[in-house]
């Protein structure tokens, strides 16, 4: 019987199958940040188990609240920092070198096709863009991952989502994933792995694929996997060039994880995006999605461009293209947060930061901050945000605040008018 990508990865990492129903997998990576890891560290210390299974496979970053905003967040950073030092975890990204976890770890080349990755963060599914099985877990799974290098998962039933058609100008990966979530709903992929495929995905950059895989969890998915191909190899090439004679050899190696032609899927959905307009969320659930034109004119107080969904260089380029030479509306506060120092540097070099600043944007250091209402742009009660983030839950960016999710192009256009609007990149 043919196998899906997830099934192949599971088979190659299987350590144990307790009760014949759960797969205990060997981990290639355990990613850590300062919000969910300190409690795991303290728990391990209290149990007399302050050890790590392999310091080279553990990567850590301070990203949620950075620089620390108070004594509590300073302590969270300190616990992670001290632990990384104590266990010689050399890939630890502290202030000045730190960025949003799901942007910086791929950028450093830590993700490979076929890897099994966990992190105490629900958007860990982002790394599925590389053909990896990457899943968000709680602190207990994280603690066991750190200590033993294993994690337990149910059988990876796969939902194949084939995206066909050609995207209209001004329509992006963010719009595609919002459409997917709208169609399958917030629990449409619960306990399943999504495998994204089709010509639209094939044509996407790694950045765009990460945007899409990032929000797989908003449909309940364990991971959102894209097939490893030439685009994947090209992105990874600087990190793997010493391991392979050429790109073709790398591609052939990664193709071990391609699904079989007769792979058995739990479900197969085809989504045609040829007429898809830019989309936006309207309620408190990520499947409450409408065309931007249906929400046009909705006033916003704050625009936020950044996060693990849309804070990468391509996102900033598109947003800058929309705001170039313009000013944001007087009624609006606009924030752009490049997701990593490298993105920030690149944006500086390309003149994007100047475009944002001239337009009236506040440019922040790389951090998750505002996306989950922890720092750097929290909303007041009754305020409305246009955000390129991934969750529009009630109060997500601040108690009593409302969040509309959208692409960087739409967010940038919204900053200029102060109300939800399509960007000039979309002509229809």
């Amino acid at each position, binding site marked *: 019987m043919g196998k899906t990508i997830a099934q192949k990865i599971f088979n190659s990492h299987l*350590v*144990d199958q*307790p*009760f014949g*129903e*759960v797969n*205990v997998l060997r981990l290639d990576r355990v990613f850590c940040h300062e*919000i*969910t890891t*300190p*409690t795991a560290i*303290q*728990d391990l210390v209290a*149990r007399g*188990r302050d050890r790590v299974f392999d310091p080279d496979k553990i990567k850590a970053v301070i990203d*949620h*609240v950075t620089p620390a905003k*108070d004594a*509590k*967040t300073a*302590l*969270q950073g300190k*616990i992670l920092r001290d632990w990384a030092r104590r266990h010689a975890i050399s890939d630890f990204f502290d202030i000045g070198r730190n960025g949003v976890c799901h942007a910086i770890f791929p950028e450093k080349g830590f993700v490979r096709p076929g890897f099994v990755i966990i992190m*105490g*963060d*629900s958007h*860990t599914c982002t790394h599925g863009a590389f053909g990896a099985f990457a899943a*968000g*877990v*709680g*602190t*207990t*799974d994280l*603690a*066991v991952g750190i*200590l*033993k290098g*294993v994690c*337990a998962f149910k059988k990876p039933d796969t939902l194949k989502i084939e995206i066909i058609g050609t995207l209209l100008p001004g329509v992006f990966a963010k719009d595609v994933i919002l459409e997917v979530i709208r169609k399958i709903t*917030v*629990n449409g992929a*619960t*306990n399943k792995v999504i495998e994204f495929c089709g010509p639209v995905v094939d044509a996407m950059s790694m950045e765009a694929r990460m945007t899409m895989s990032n929000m797989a969890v908003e449909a*309940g998915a*364990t991971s959102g996997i894209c097939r490893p191909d030439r685009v994947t190899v090209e992105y990874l090439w600087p990190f793997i060039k010493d391991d392979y004679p050429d790109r073709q050899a790398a591609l052939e190696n990664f193709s071990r994880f391609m699904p079989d032609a007769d792979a058995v899927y739990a479900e197969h959905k085809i989504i045609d995006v040829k007429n898809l307009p830019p989309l936006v969320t309207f309620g408190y*659930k990520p499947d409450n999605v409408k065309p931007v034109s249906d929400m046009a004119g909705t006033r916003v107080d704050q625009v936020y461009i950044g996060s693990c969904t849309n804070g990468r260089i391509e996102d900033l380029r598109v947003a800058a293209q929309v705001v170039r030479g313009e000013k944001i509306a007087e009624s609006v506060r606009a924030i752009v947060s490049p997701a990593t120092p490298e993105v920030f540097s690149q944006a500086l070099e390309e003149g994007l930061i100047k475009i944002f600043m001239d337009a009236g944007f506040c440019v922040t250091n790389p951090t998750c901050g505002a996306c*989950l*209402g*922890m720092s750097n742009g929290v909303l007041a009660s009754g305020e409305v945000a246009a955000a390129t983030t991934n*969750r529009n*839950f*009630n*109060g*997500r960016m601040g*108690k009593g605040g409302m969040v509309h999710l959208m692409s960087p192009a739409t967010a940038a256009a919204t900053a200029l008018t102060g109300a939800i609007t399509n960007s000039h990149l979309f002509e229809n």
Partner: protein
Amino acid sequence: MTSFCGTTLCLDRSDINTDEIIPARYLTEIEKTAMGPHLMEDLELEGFDPKQDLKEIGVLVARRNFGCGSSREHAPWALEANGIHVVIAESFARIFYQNMFNCGMLAITLNTKQIDRLFQAAAVSPLHVAVDVDTGKIQATAGPDTWTIPFALTGFEKALVQAGGWVEYADQNY
């Protein structure tokens, strides 16, 4: 024998997310018990007052997709800090569900009819449930009514609850 019991609180909504169970602004706390006073303080639900309604509660009952959103284990910790060790729902989000068992707590999936009956009973008089993990039975009592509801856990889930959680289980086995 592993059993849990308590008075239930029925929350008549689907898709209750982990931001509603414990808002992100409290994720700067490191001690699990610090979540206690903030359990569901952002949950807006008609007639629900987190300050009053969570007192003396041992079990939550909800509709579909309970615990969706963030991976934060702070959600089960916030429940535990309030003496709530069992959540019964029509379905759960994966990470929350696993987190409950990893903490040695229980997430029980029942069908719509069974959940409806719990809601109907609780609307009339306080609903008390006793959950026996070994026999896979819930004894529900509301006023003069008493009924038994069977539920299914996998062998692995049972083993986690009996071991006291995933750290204990993994430590014995790996």
